[in-house]
């Protein structure tokens, strides 16, 4: 372990959280007027904008049209100023293509795709500031945007990134020490790049069904279950925050007016 410990002796992380605590999530729905649905989400210092268009007629090549379900089209991009190093980031590079296809898989599972045959739903996410858990923040923001657009979902799909940190060298709690690595929920950039194994999970939060599970670095199978459990709990916590935001938005946005007409 180079330089610093991810967990202090007291069991606190570098930014002062406990191992099972999320960063502060702030979000807003309906930030744009042009798309059908949009959202802005901050998860600590990770900031993401999402916009959803559709379902609409397939533009461009007709060949992509699916006769039994909707075509989900995702685009992930990062702003030039999103990381410490200022750098032009073309949309088509390998990393963002991979992210886009992961997002597509996630949302094909969450959207009730069979309802809109021959149509297309576009999901655009842009990372404005990257501070760890980019994929997770994008999933959470896009979920909000889809809800805002009124697109039928099975459930909220939320995501959480965990890092398995080695236990502190000297712990106040000897039992903790024996458990081995500790899963840190909602990892920040510092934690993600520390070289410890990361586990990114996207799940349908209510039923706990996994949609996407991605492991970076080598992870011992014995550790897998505990990390997965923690990550799923993180997804559920995120879901509660998003749900509250959606309810607030609808209540403040004159749902009663639209309902009365």
């Amino acid at each position, binding site marked *: 372990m180079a330089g610093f410990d991810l967990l202090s002796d007291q069991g606190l992380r570098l930014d002062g959280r406990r191992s099972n605590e999320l960063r502060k999530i702030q979000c807003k729905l309906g930030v744009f007027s042009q798309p059908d649905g949009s959202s802005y989400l901050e998860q600590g210092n990770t900031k993401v904008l999402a916009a959803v268009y559709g379902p609409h007629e397939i533009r461009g090549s007709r060949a992509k049209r699916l006769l039994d379900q909707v075509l989900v089209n995702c685009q992930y991009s990062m702003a030039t100023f999103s990381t410490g190093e200022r750098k032009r980031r073309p949309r088509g590079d390998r990393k963002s293509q991979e992210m886009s296809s992961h997002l597509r898989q996630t949302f094909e599972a969450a959207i009730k795709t069979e309802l809109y*045959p021959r149509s297309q739903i576009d999901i655009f996410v842009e990372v404005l500031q990257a501070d760890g858990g980019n994929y997770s923040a994008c999933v959470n923001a896009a979920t909000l945007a889809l*809800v805002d657009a009124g697109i039928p*979902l099975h459930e909220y799909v939320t995501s959480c990134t965990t890092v398995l940190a080695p236990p502190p060298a000297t712990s106040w709690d000897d039992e903790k020490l024996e458990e081995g690595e500790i899963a840190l929920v909602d990892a920040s950039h510092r934690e993600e790049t520390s070289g410890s194994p990361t586990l990114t999970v996207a799940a349908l939060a*209510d039923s706990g069904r996994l949609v996407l599970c991605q492991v970076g670095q080598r992870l011992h199978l014995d550790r897998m279950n505990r990390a997965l459990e923690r990550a799923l709990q993180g997804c559920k916590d995120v879901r509660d925050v998003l749900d509250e935001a959606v309810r607030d938005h609808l209540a403040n946005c004159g749902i009663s007016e639209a309902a009365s007409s």
Partner: protein
Amino acid sequence: MMAENVCINVAYQRTTFTVPISQPTPRIYTPGEVISPHAGFIVSHGTYIDGDYLKASVAGVKEQVDKLVYVRPLKNRYNGEIGDVVVGRVTEVQQKRWKVDTNSRLDSNLLISSMNLPGGELRRRSVEDEKMMRKFLQEGDLISAEVQNVFDDGSLSLHTRSLKYGKLSQGILLTVFPSLIRRRKNHFHDLHCGASIILGNNGFIWISPTINTEVEGGAGGFTQNLDKEVSMEEREVMARLRNCILALAASKMSLYDTSIVYAFEESQKYKVSELLDAENMLDVALMTYHRLESQEET
């Protein structure tokens, strides 16, 4: 030249457009929430059955008619119903039909056989007519039409078999959520202020100068008069109407002839350009809301 009255706001001081509504907020359902342990309900829009439960799939309010349960979201794409008036933009010219973007999930069809061609209503559609299709309507043209049929996949078939429908020429197109348009008997209005509006059920609103139908032969059909100059006063009225409708839409107030006329009248104390300020928009919406409320009470 210095621009006068530049208005800059920081994000956290942004005006919230909500009109205070007296009635309590209804129960809101969100995706995945259990509506009831499934017991013989008919599943409809915004709901689905998962195991033993009836769950919501969108965020909105629940409505129930006997055993039919549905959840209506605040906004979604336009779901056509037969007889709706729509405004749309032609996206494609195909054999025997035009594809029209009507803000619904698939483009609508306008068949050449369901429109009145120039020169007699009961005329056979010949091959020549099919070759002439691009002369009638091109890609990018705006039309008003009525929904003739709704297909299984949700796409619409339109018709323009009345003189009030047809190609639109000079005016302003506005887009709002389809749920904000209140369904009325008539969606074509010649307002006293000197402009006409078409409130498309699909959320597309068309504002145009009023055309004297007796002299110029109606707005319908496929003639487009782009030579006629619209006077400054008419333009100002149209621009004011546009801003008023946007003000109402920003506050999520339903749009129909009365609410628009009231908003237009309440906006007179502002200049047209001032109506773009968030605070003034909210003020106009509030005044309109109170006027509609007081009218309902009497």
